[in-house]
């Protein structure tokens, strides 16, 4: 029984990861953040609380915000996954997404541990709301904790990116 627990059944999954098809065989109990970080070595997605509260591990599945520490990797079979590593490529031909530029400009980060999750959630917001108000931003980012900045610089950064993208 113990061995069965460790060696969970394996499944092959196929999904689109940052614009490219990814086919991989994984154990059924692997979480998405483990798949990204351990199996695929995409270290940009960080794991914080591990219980779906802090938002560090936020990625987009079919455009929706998901805590990848709570999502079993097998569930992304057939879906489209976007992580911080694919963010810049979603915006025209520029080297960085406007959110990445504005987070730098306004110092919408300090330690940077929450930043990939914060950026992915912000992208999901801007995808559905091109001109968010301060309150829209507060509402949408309510599940992404930042322990360093005090948040105001993040609000400024998201608004600035929206402005840039609407220009």
């Amino acid at each position, binding site marked *: 029984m113990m061995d069965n*627990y*460790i060696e969970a059944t394996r499944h092959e999954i196929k999904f689109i990861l940052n614009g490219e098809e990814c086919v991989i065989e994984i154990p059924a109990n692997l979480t998405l953040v483990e798949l990204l970080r351990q199996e695929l070595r995409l*270290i940009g997605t960080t794991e914080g609380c591990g219980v779906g509260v*802090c938002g560090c591990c936020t990625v987009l599945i079919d455009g929706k915000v998901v805590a990848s520490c709570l999502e079993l990797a097998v569930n992304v079979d057939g879906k489209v996954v976007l992580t*911080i590593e694919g963010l810049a490529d979603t915006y025209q031909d520029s080297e960085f997404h406007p959110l990445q530029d504005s987070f730098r400009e306004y110092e919408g980060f*300090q*330690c940077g541990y929450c930043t990939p999750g914060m950026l992915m959630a912000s992208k999901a917001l801007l995808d559905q709301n091109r001109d968010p108000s301060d309150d829209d*931003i507060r509402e949408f980012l309510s599940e992404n904790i930042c322990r360093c*900045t*005090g948040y105001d610089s993040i609000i400024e950064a998201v608004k600035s990116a929206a402005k840039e993208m609407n220009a």
Partner: protein
Amino acid sequence: MSTQIPIIEQDKKVEKSGTIGRHTLRLDGESKVTGTVAYTDDLPFEGYYAEVIRSNIPHGEIISISTEAAEAIPGVVAVVTGDDLKNADWISPYVGPAFRDQPVLAIEKVRYVGEPVAAVIAERPDIASLAATEVVVECNKLRSVTDVNRARKKTAPILHESGDSAAVFEDLATVHRSEEPNVAYTYELKVGDIEKGFEDADVVLEGEYATPMVQHTHLEPFVTVASYNVSNNSFKIITGNQTPHFVRREIARIFDIPSSKVEVEVPQMGGAFGSRTYVRIEPLVAALSRVVEAPVKLRQTSSESFDTSVRDGTQTRVKTGVTNDGDVIAQEVEVIWDSGAYADISPRKVKKAGYTAPGAYDIPNVKVVSKSTYTNKPPGVAYRGFGVAQTAWAVESHMDDVAKEIGMDPVELRIRNITQDGGTYNGVPIEPHGAPQCLQAVIDEVDWFGSELKPEEPKRSHIKKGRGVAVTLKATITPSTSEAIVLLDCDGSVNVITGGTEVGQGIITTLAQITADGLGIGIEYINVNTPNTNSAPFNTSTTSSRSTFHLGNAILRAIDELKGQLIDIVVEKQGIESKEVTVEGGLVKSPLGEESIGSVVSSYFVGGGGTLIGKGYFSTEASSGDRYASAFWMTGATYAEVSVDTRTGKYTIDKWVNSADCGKAIDPIRCEGQILGAAVQALGHTMSEEMVFESGQQVNKSLLDYKVPAIGDVPKVSKVIVVESGDPNGPHGAKGVGESNTVTVPPAIGNAIQNACGARVTELPITPDKVLKAIEEGI
């Protein structure tokens, strides 16, 4: 209070990178917004994984630890217990910066729920986790004590029979264990004649205030990799730690090897806030690596952070003597610290925060008693604010109580008693500190004396509005040392090597700005190295908001030395007087012409290159006796405006203003980020954060139940004021700014609530039930 306060014009545009006082894009920014930055867990690793087995009782004697079932699991390499360390000839298994009272793994006794008792080492992390559940620890339960007052009674169970002084730090050289039961260390301060002070006072008021244990909740959990190299008996430790040189010293000591055989590398950290100071899990992981003679990684969960390091709880009694005119002439403060099961740095905290327990005020007669108390709880360590956040909660709340008692405006009382720049504090002269300017900045911003809050309309009369202010004065770690090496390459580019660690505060960029300015070159030519003790010269710590001041000064000295060498080279080459040569704008200028600094280096060496090396040492002087000298003083103030629903006790913060004195802003945007970041962290301590214990066990040991501020919790109307008083000893006048508002936010909000509805909540956090209770009881 008529001084013109220098408040900088905030310029959010990047104008000239590297320039002092202008916003400069952080050098680590690109890596952080693209996710390519590497924290410890991100680095490639080949080796074994550890999992810790923890005590599930608060106090007990270990009878046996059965490891056979765990060891039988395929993939398990070893299970290590305190017994393996206790009798080993290769390790002295006790650590600590003040007393060596903390075992690497529990030896004979456990002293808190969550204490590491054993560790499993396995080929995979999931195997280690599973095997850890198979380790059975049998204990004989002992009586436990979790309350600081009970702990000091003669009948209390004793946590530590003895404790060896670590004798590492000068300011702790005279620290000795107290005779009182479970008291690790007592600090006492007497200024003037306290009894006469109270006799002369028109009004004497007493109050008691308390703060609970809280946790730093840095989002990156503790991760350490240790690799023992059996061939030369050396260690490499990769760890998120704010004090790599202390880690090196401690690892070298416990394994009895030269410190040169311990390499400590510190990658970027996902927040720290004091949690990653001195040694945390490093000695354990090093010991595990030593046992299996292979690299071992321990990645704790975020819940385990609560088992590893917390902020001391406090119970504080304040007694103040004041004249009818509002002169505070006597103050007695007794602070009892709930420091948990191991002292860690508590003796310094007790002393340093004890020294400024009377707040930012110049009081002629002062008595302070400050005691660090052992309890069966997780160890209290350094936390942003270093104890002053707890003492100021008491004294700054009390100042409003005193003002109310004598019928004086609380800000007027503060202005009347605040220690002046160039004034005295605790009876001795104090260096310029900026506290009056910080207070003035917030009251000017809101026109405190010229405006009143508009009450709610009659149908909403259950909503009461109020406003409050708090101010702080906090010391930095003193004495301490920072050193810097500046390497100038023959292409004119520069590497800066220090032991300063990047916890998120932006020190890499701030140091690069100082270097760029010092040599007159663009910041794009500068690299600030990740600290590695094999190359980085000594740095006491990245704590106490000391880095800009201390490392900045060390770098300026290194640059001076470097410039001297450049001048010497040109003098020798050109046969001129050294006074005719200057270095500015990246050029060495003499009457015979000018040459780039890189080209001067290039001309000096042969063989395809060369490096000119400037070094700078910067140390601050120790204080004597019961005084606590400080290399600089951190000051700040907070104004808060609240609406309290008197039917439910719920309150909202409608507006807040936070000011702090940074001396001189090397980068104004980064200073703003420190001020607001500190304030919002303290907003959590004010409104929700509390480690809740039941029967010695924390019951909210997860971010699910331990609520830190989210984006929607931050007051929408906010103003951050960067005060620049110019520190006489700081690089360009700069000093630390990272902690002041961690101190001032809770009492400012508490005072605003009292102002709104008369309710004085004396114990953090200020939850609606406490507000309602205080309203109902008419406190």
